[in-house]
């Protein structure tokens, strides 16, 4: 060993400080319902705030109603969304109709807000092709292969740039587990390399089915992963809809201006199971862990702010919940009335021009189906 204590590089210090820029997640309204950033808060009119509240009540009611439908066996795979209302509604409302949405499976509420119908969402869950055919063509189906939507987002964003669409971006969602996928890095890096207009959301809800966030990576935040790709990123209180919306809007503005992509980590929580297909969170997490998150509920805090302002009441909310429930029941009836799917149609959609073998199979199935 050489004498002296000078180190050529202090890895311990680098490791201890690398998350420093992310020490304070962006917040406008804290968990007690106190406005902590009055300057940003002042940008929002009462009408806008009430609209946020309505959207969150809508999403919470959708969640509850879909859980009922699932118990009744009227839905297929469905990923519960309770707890993530601020993260989902706050972000999607920052985008325009022409923006291209690449969702994952927990993002049906954003798809509906972005221009499809509740019935289409239910049809997707039930496993019906009409659930992937949307009135607003600027979205794909919820991606099941985690990460695939991220590499595709880079492509959509590059296509937007090449088309010289000046007021258009691609935006995508994944969860905390999604940031471990190779495609996550490839997608963010490709969008960065091409300086393409993309906004990438990581809804860090604490859990990838049963695997907690801390087991995904030793990185203190998921947002900081973007730094390696030369992409600016931020952590935001995902239970604060005003903060999420403000950050999402800033990200869209940044991307539209030609500055390349942005990564946003929303700190949120999955109140329920991973999916309606038999996952039981009591196998892997405790009530003690859940409680502080339930207390941080995004509806509770905005409800308090609005009630204090005198622009929101429990009666009003109860009436909304009842209306939304009726809407969802109606949407389910609509979904249940969709025509039965035909294998011959599946075969027709496999290629633009059916191959000889497929042509033969179409004829076979059409004969069966006409009986």
């Amino acid at each position, binding site marked *: 060993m050489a004498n002296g204590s000078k180190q050529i590089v202090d890895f311990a210090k680098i490791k201890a400080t690398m998350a420093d820029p992310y020490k304070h997640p962006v917040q406008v309204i804290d968990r007690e319902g106190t406005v902590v950033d009055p300057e940003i808060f002042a940008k929002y009119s009462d009408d806008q705030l009430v609209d946020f509240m309505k959207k969150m009540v809508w999403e919470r009611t959708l969640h509850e109603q879909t859980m009922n439908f699932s118990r009744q066996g009227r839905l297929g795979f469905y990923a519960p969304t309770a707890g993530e209302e601020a993260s989902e509604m706050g972000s999607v409302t920052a985008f325009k109709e022409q923006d291209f949405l690449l969702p994952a499976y927990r993002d049906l509420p954003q798809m509906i807000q972005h221009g499809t119908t509740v019935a289409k969402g239910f049809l997707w869950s039930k496993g019906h092709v009409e659930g992937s055919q949307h009135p607003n063509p600027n979205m794909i189906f919820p991606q099941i292969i985690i990460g695939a939507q991220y590499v*595709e987002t880079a492509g959509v964003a590059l296509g937007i740039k090449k*088309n010289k669409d000046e007021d258009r971006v691609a935006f995508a969602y994944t969860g905390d587990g999604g940031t471990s996928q190779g495609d996550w890095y490839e997608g963010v890096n490709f969008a960065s390399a091409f300086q393409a207009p993309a906004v990438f959301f990581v809804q860090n809800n604490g859990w990838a089915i049963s695997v907690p966030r801390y087991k995904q990576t030793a990185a203190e935040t998921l947002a900081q992963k973007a730094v390696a790709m030369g992409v600016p990123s931020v952590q935001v209180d995902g239970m604060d809809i005003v903060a999420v919306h403000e950050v999402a809007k800033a990200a869209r503005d940044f991307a539209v201006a030609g500055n390349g992509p942005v990564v946003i980590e929303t700190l949120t929580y999955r109140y329920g199971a991973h999916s309606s297909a038999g996952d039981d969170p009591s196998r892997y997490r405790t009530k003690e862990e859940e409680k502080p998150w339930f207390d941080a509920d995004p509806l509770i805090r905005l409800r308090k702010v609005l009630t204090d302002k005198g622009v929101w009441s429990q009666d009003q909310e109860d009436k909304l919940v009842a209306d939304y429930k009726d809407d969802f029941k109606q949407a389910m009836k609509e979904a249940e009335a969709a025509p039965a799917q035909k294998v011959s149609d599946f075969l027709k959609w496999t290629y633009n021009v059916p191959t000889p073998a497929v042509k033969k199979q179409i004829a076979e199935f059409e004969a069966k189906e006409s009986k």
Partner: protein
Amino acid sequence: MAKMTYIKAITSGLDQVLNDDPKTLIFGEDVGKNGGVFRTTVGLQDKYGEDRVFDTPLAESGILGLAIGLSLTGWRPIPEIQFMGFTFEAMDGIVGQLARDHYRFGGQKNFPVTVRTPFGGGTHTAEMHADNLENYFTSTPGLRVVTPANPYDAKGMIISAVESDDPVLFMENLKLYRSMKAEVPDEKYTVPLDSAKVVREGTDITIVAYSAEVNESLKAADALAKDNISAEVIDLRSLSPIDTETIFASIDKTHKVVIVQEAQRMAGVGATVAADIAEEKIMSLDAPIGRVAAPDSVYPFAQAENDWIPNADDVEAKAREIFNY
């Protein structure tokens, strides 16, 4: 008309589609300034600009994601995967996503992507570069898999592939790139993506092959001719779908068939062809179906390639066995 190598014929076809359709894009690793590691895209970036012909970061899954996303915004992507062995990194992109996407949208959106990739043995490449991986892709509904065996087809088929609204995996044979020249028209022409071709007519036995094995089969046919055995050689050209009509018509004439592939025998294209023949034409055969394929080992280390890849002698021997049955 000029004599062109297989690789020049592909370059000429790519030049044609870039010229004809401003929505076509070529991208991948090293395809820009360098013109590809084999020079297949050489000169195209200079001619059409970096917006149309561009390098990507080194990540195959990202390249496929790019292709799918560009399709969603109205482009006609022609990504290159530098070697077919690298398609494993893009397996979800090609098989999990691209091939299914037209179906998933119930036919509402098209994904007119042509994935070009070099494959095939005999050029002593590094490990994982020369594999014959076609069977992974020919079992994928929604994806067309084609491979030309000569310069004329190479140009005509790359143009058809790009013009097709279906995703196409366009496999380019490494050994053929510079080993053969043929007359190739300068002007635009197309070769269909779903038809086999009788490349040598004969009456005694049918040899079905594709890619570099077509040449081996033609050599075998020459040798057989010396003993007055007249072999008909069919170039499949399309591995998915397989043009069974052309094969069946030939079998009705010869009543004997040998199927040749460079890939390992297990679960290969040859097995599919054999099954199709067995289903439809078994009563027309007067000998068992013969198969020539590489043995079922992992693709060999470069020095042993020539002992492993089926050659004209192997094809000739199998053809004699079936002919004399």
